[in-house]
């Protein structure tokens, strides 16, 4: 059973001069996580806004949990949760005030709103900050409260628009943990992200979008196979290049070794991750070679795009400006 279906979505802005979505289609199986991966301006936010009833497409069909979004938006609003790129809560009020307000707006009774707020604050580790105004929260705390607000009614389908953009590494780790728990609880989730690593970690399936269209779709393993997975990279002094090449060949099993003499860099795809790194370091040490740099390079969004489209992920500036205007806010 598909929890989310979008078919042939087209959306233009500025009287057709900017094409945000160009026939985008995707679907999400019930109880699974779809990661929508793409650069800024690819159409991620527009897609989420259409699915979450905030925006009508120029054409196309959308349904959530079998309900036609365009015909019965009010029914859809009762079963979805939305948490956006910009944490949308009232900063003057406390975390508690916000959760109570949104609970009441979901038509919970005063008591039900209170007990749900207590639960959510506990679940998101915000109990201590509950009585503080949101403007005193860290970026990560704001996001968690924003997410909590979108979970008040235990939505069947959850939309998260770039849930970790702008967070520091710790905030991102926390957020991943929170989302992991939600997914274990069985929610159907569509999340957008600019980070392959994030989609890889959180999503069952990934849809890569570019210029308002899905250009590839599959599990992260499948995508990585297309992209080439992790690479071991070693930079050494010129005289050590040959020796380094032998070591890399030994560690990687031989295939696809790339030597860049200008950069004095040897690289090759590896499948054993950090094990390969340690092994290579050990072998270098045994031969008395001191690498200038050594590391594992994970494929980035750019690598995915390069592999899929032959060009790097470029930002469509116009649309981005249009979409974020009026929604920008200071850090």
């Amino acid at each position, binding site marked *: 059973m598909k929890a989310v279906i979008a078919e042939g979505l087209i959306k233009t802005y500025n009287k057709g001069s900017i094409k945000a979505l160009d026939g985008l289609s995707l679907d999400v199986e019930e109880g699974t996580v779809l990661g929508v991966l793409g650069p800024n301006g690819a159409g991620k936010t527009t897609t989420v806004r259409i699915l979450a009833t905030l925006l009508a497409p120029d054409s196309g069909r959308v349904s959530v949990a079998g309900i036609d979004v365009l015909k019965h938006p009010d029914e859809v609003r009762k079963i979805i949760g*939305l948490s956006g*790129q910009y944490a949308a*809560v009232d900063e*003057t*009020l406390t975390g508690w005030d916000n959760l109570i*307000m949104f609970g009441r707006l*979901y038509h919970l009774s005063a008591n039900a709103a209170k007990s749900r707020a207590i639960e959510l604050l506990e679940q998101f580790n915000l109990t201590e900050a509950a009585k503080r105004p949101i403007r005193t929260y860290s970026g990560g705390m704001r996001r968690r409260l924003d997410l909590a607000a979108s979970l008040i009614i235990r939505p069947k389908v959850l939309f998260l628009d770039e849930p970790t953009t702008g967070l520091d590494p710790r905030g991102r780790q926390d957020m991943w943990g929170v989302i992991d728990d939600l997914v274990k609880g069985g929610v159907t989730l569509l999340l957008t992200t600019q980070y392959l690593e994030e989609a890889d970690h959180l999503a069952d399936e990934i849809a890569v979008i570019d210029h308002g269209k899905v250009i590839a779709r599959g599990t992260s393993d499948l995508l990585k196979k297309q992209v080439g997975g992790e690479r071991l990279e070693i930079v050494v002094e010129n005289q050590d290049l040959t020796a380094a090449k032998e070591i890399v060949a030994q560690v990687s099993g031989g295939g696809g070794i790339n030597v860049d003499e200008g950069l004095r860099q040897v690289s090759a795809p590896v499948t054993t991750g950090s094990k390969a790194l340690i092994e290579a370091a050990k072998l270098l040490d045994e031969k008395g070679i001191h690498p200038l740099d050594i590391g594992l390079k994970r494929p980035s969004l750019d690598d995915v795009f390069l592999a899929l489209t032959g060009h790097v992920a470029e930002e469509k500036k116009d649309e981005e400006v249009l979409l974020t205007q009026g*929604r920008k806010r200071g850090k």
Partner: protein
Amino acid sequence: MNAISDALIITKRQLLQLARVPELILFSIIQPIMFVLLFRFVFGGSIDTGQPGGYVQLLMPGIFVQTVAFTLAATAVGLTADMQKGLIDRFRSLPISRSAVLFGRTLGDAALNIVVLTAMGLTGYIVGWRPTSGLFNVFLGFSFLLVFGFAMSWVGVLIGLSVREERVATNATFIAVFPLTFLSNAFAPTTGMPKPLQYIAEWNPVSTMVAACRQLFGLENQFGATAGSFPSENPLMMSIVYMILIMAVFIPLSVRKYNNSSKR
């Protein structure tokens, strides 16, 4: 029923904001009080109204109307801020009545006006304002002011939903309201204006409101009845017509704009 309770939740949010940041109330009342004192003591001495009690009797209704007219700005700026922060998007993703957010805000701004008008009335009393029409009419006058503020608030909703930046909202509303309140009988008689301006001033809803309030507070409307125009002869009736007109135009326009607000 849900539509009303939804709106009241939004109103409650605004009142909670005032409770959490009491400075918001303080600054909402400081400016009007400052205006009362400035006009009373800077101009009051040199303007001879020929009425018992002097300029302050004419001034207070004018300054009340000016203040509630400026509700428009508060509403517009508040809404633009909510849009910028994505809060309006969240509200629109909730299963609530489409107009609840807007009614909630305009009611919240009206509630703040009760506080502001009370503070101004007391200040006026201290500096010599003495309505002579009896408690009921004074109450009626203040109710009139509240409804007028509510109507102006809806103009602010449309402006707030139409601009993209808080600063633009601030400037746009200032430009809209300032001439409206000064091109009127609020602070000086319209007789001193060039003829065409005098007609505009007398048809200005601010003027009819000021004249109506002067009547309700027990004062001959000396500043108003000048060119003998219809509004200056029938200020009470015209004020009611204006309030209904403003709401009849701006409420539906605003609600429509709100429903389409993310299409920009």
